[in-house]
C-alpha cells in the first residue's frame, strides 16, 4: 500500500540476534521486510533468513536448536509474525 509520499510501505520486523548467533551472523539485528503473505509465521521468517545461504542456512538449518521469541515471549514455528514485532533468534540457554 503506498503511503503519503507515494513510495510503497514495507512491513518490517525488528530482528534481534543473541549470543553465539549474533557473533556468527556478525550483527546485533536488523529491520527485516516481511514476505507479502496474508499471514506470516515464524517459519516463513526463518525460511527467508535461511535463503541467504552460507552461515544463515547453516545456523538456522532444520534440526538446529534455535528458539524464537516474539516481543519477549517464546513462540512456536507456526506463531504469527506482525509488522513491528521484535523477533529474537536465540541459541539454547546456558544460565545459572
Amino acid at each position: 500500500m503506498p503511503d503519503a509520499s507515494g513510495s510503497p510501505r514495507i512491513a518490517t520486523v525488528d530482528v534481534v540476534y543473541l549470543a553465539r548467533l549474533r557473533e556468527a551472523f556478525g550483527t546485533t539485528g536488523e529491520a527485516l521486510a516481511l514476505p507479502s503473505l496474508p499471514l506470516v509465521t515464524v517459519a516463513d521468517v526463518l525460511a527467508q533468513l535461511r535463503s541467504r545461504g552460507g552461515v544463515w542456512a547453516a545456523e538456522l538449518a532444520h534440526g538446529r536448536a534455535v528458539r524464537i521469541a516474539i516481543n519477549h515471549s517464546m513462540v512456536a514455528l507456526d506463531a504469527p509474525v506482525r509488522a513491528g514485532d521484535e523477533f529474537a533468534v536465540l541459541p539454547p540457554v546456558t544460565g545459572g
Partner: protein
Amino acid sequence: MTVRVQTADFDVGREIAALRAGDARVGAVASFVGTVRDVNDAATVSTLTLEHYPGMTEKALAAIVDDAKARFDILEALVVHRVGELKPTDQIVLVVVTGAHREAAFDACRFLMDYLKTKAPFWKKEVTPDGARWVDARASDDEAAARW
C-alpha cells in the same frame, strides 16, 4: 523486586534478611548460590562472560517465580542473576525461598534453579587456553527441569 539481573555482586546474608524481614509466618528459608568454577568440560576457565536479553530475561524469571509460587506452599521467592564478566569463585546466581516449612522451601528452591537453567535467557561464554567459546546447553539440565 523478587527478580534482579545485575552486574554487581550480591550479599547473600543481606538478601535473605531482606526477604524474610518482619514476616513471622516464615519458619524455613532455603537458598542456593551458583559460583564460577575454574574448569568446564576438561578445560581451564579463566573468565566467564554472561549475556542476557534485556526485557525478556527479567520477564522469564518473573514467570518462573510466579510458577514456583503457584506450585509450592511458599511465602516469598527471590532470584538474583549476574551478567557481565566473572572470574572463578565469583557468585553467579542466588535463589532464596521462604516458607512456613522446609519441604516446600527446599522443593521450590530446586525447582527455581532447574527451570532457570533451561528457560531463562542467559548465555555463558568462557575463556580457556584454546580461546573463547560459547557454552553448550546440557541435556542433563533439560532432564532436571523435566522432573517437575
